[in-house]
């Protein structure tokens, strides 16, 4: 109960920022750009991009210092609320983009689910990066999702030098959040769903660790 109250209180600090800052405008611009660029593309690709890119943008606002850490809350509750602050706007963008593309029926549910899966995973990753490295580092994640995350790793690994670098590149592309993987959520792939859930959990745990360190630094 206390945990939920803490999440709700933190959410109260994050939610208005979506509508009162430039984030709302940026999300609208992103949605418009994705719809324009993807007018002849598969709606699933647009939904995945809306979920992932929307989550990166929203995490840049949600993943920040908060005054609530000096009150009776927990870093985990703050991290969960900040993660929600990235997922919810990205989900709204995904739903709106899918509706705008005229997808309906059972296909609508599958496409939105894949987009939300991408949002859930990328929000976790983006939140951890924002708190660990700063919001500027999210630009790198955005580009990474747009380029390396768009296609399966075999397309890119061949470009890497043979040897250790190839292994590292293949591992990063295989393990990292990627649009090509979450595409399978629309087909009901439980492995892709689990991958997204694992990234969400990892992101929240890392973010809460960073917040805990800021909240109660060990004096050694």
């Amino acid at each position, binding site marked *: 109960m*206390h945990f939920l*109250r*803490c999440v*709700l*209180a*933190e959410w*109260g*600090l*994050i939610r*208005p*920022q979506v509508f*009162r*800052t430039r984030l709302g405008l940026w999300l609208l611009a992103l949605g418009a750009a994705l719809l324009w660029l993807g007018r002849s593309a598969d709606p699933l690709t647009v939904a995945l991009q809306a979920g992932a890119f929307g989550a990166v943008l929203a995490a840049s606002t949600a993943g*920040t*210092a*908060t*005054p*609530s850490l*000096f*009150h*009776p*809350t927990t870093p985990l509750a703050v991290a969960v609320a900040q993660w929600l602050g990235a997922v919810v706007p990205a989900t709204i963008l995904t739903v709106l983009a899918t509706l705008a593309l005229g997808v309906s029926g059972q296909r609508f549910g599958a496409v939105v689910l894949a987009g939300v899966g991408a949002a859930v995973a990328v929000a976790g990753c983006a939140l951890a990066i924002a708190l660990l490295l700063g919001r500027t580092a999210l630009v790198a994640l955005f580009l990474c999702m747009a380029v390396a995350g768009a296609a399966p790793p075999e397309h890119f690994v061949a470009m890497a030098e043979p040897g250790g670098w190839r292994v590292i590149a293949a591992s990063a592309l295989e393990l990292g959040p990627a649009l090509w993987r979450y595409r399978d959520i629309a087909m009901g792939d439980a492995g892709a769903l689990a991958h997204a859930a694992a990234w969400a959990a990892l992101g929240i745990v890392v973010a809460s660790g960073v917040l805990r360190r800021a*909240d*109660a*630094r*060990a*004096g*050694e």
Partner: protein
Amino acid sequence: MHALASNQALTLVDVWVSSPRRLEGVSLALVPGEVAGVVGPSGAGKSSLLEVAAGILIPSRGSAVVCGVPAGSRPARHLVGYAGRRAAFPAALTVRETLTSLARLHGGPRQTAMVERALELTGAGTLADVRAGRLAVADRRRIALTQAVLGGRRVVVLDELLSGLDPVARRDLRHPLGRIAAEGVAVLIAATDPSALEGLVARVFVLREGRIVRAGVLSGLLRDRILEVILDRPPAEPPPGFRITASGVETPLTGRTPEAALALCRAHRLAVRATRVRLKSLEEVVLDAHDGAR
């Protein structure tokens, strides 16, 4: 110090911290309603001391206790409020919205009343509907204080709350601090500039390199008198026990009368234009403690 702990609002006993700034065996205790200051140069460990008191920094040795419960525990978070040097509030939210969200963390049915009480205590009612992003520095400090007292906290820990403010803003923030203390809340406030605390704190802890090198009631620390001698021209060398100032020389009147000190000036053929006796300032107490500990 252990024996005193039960009746204290805040007790630090033999606190040791090695990073980010050292604290070496710091002990202090505050009673309810007391306003105490922590002064010292940059890097002396003031912020670390305050963070230990607020439960943000965990000491490697020693203990910090707030109203009988360990600092940093969940019950202690209801009891101790903290306002750091760089208080950050969501820019897009009004002050009232921010405080209302924070009040939810304290639970209880009367969260609106909790917010109104905190705004009233700190005189921040007029800022309630202003977005945090539009607040001036002094107003942001007032809101930092407001969130620190939110929820009926019994101890408030304030890091550099008055530093870098103009005299009017300082005075305007001192008033609510007095009101808060009158409610029985213990206030521990740190300042790099000791003059910020004069007329506010009842007790002072002078910190140097992680140790309390001087502590006492402010009136006791400031009772020493200084003889200022204004000269026509600066002396090549001051008389024994004097130090050269911008306008002449000065000496503490410890163990001698002003007449005896003046006679010493005349014996050194100094052209005295005027003299005055004043009380030692808190800044001088800090400097004495700093130089004396070398």
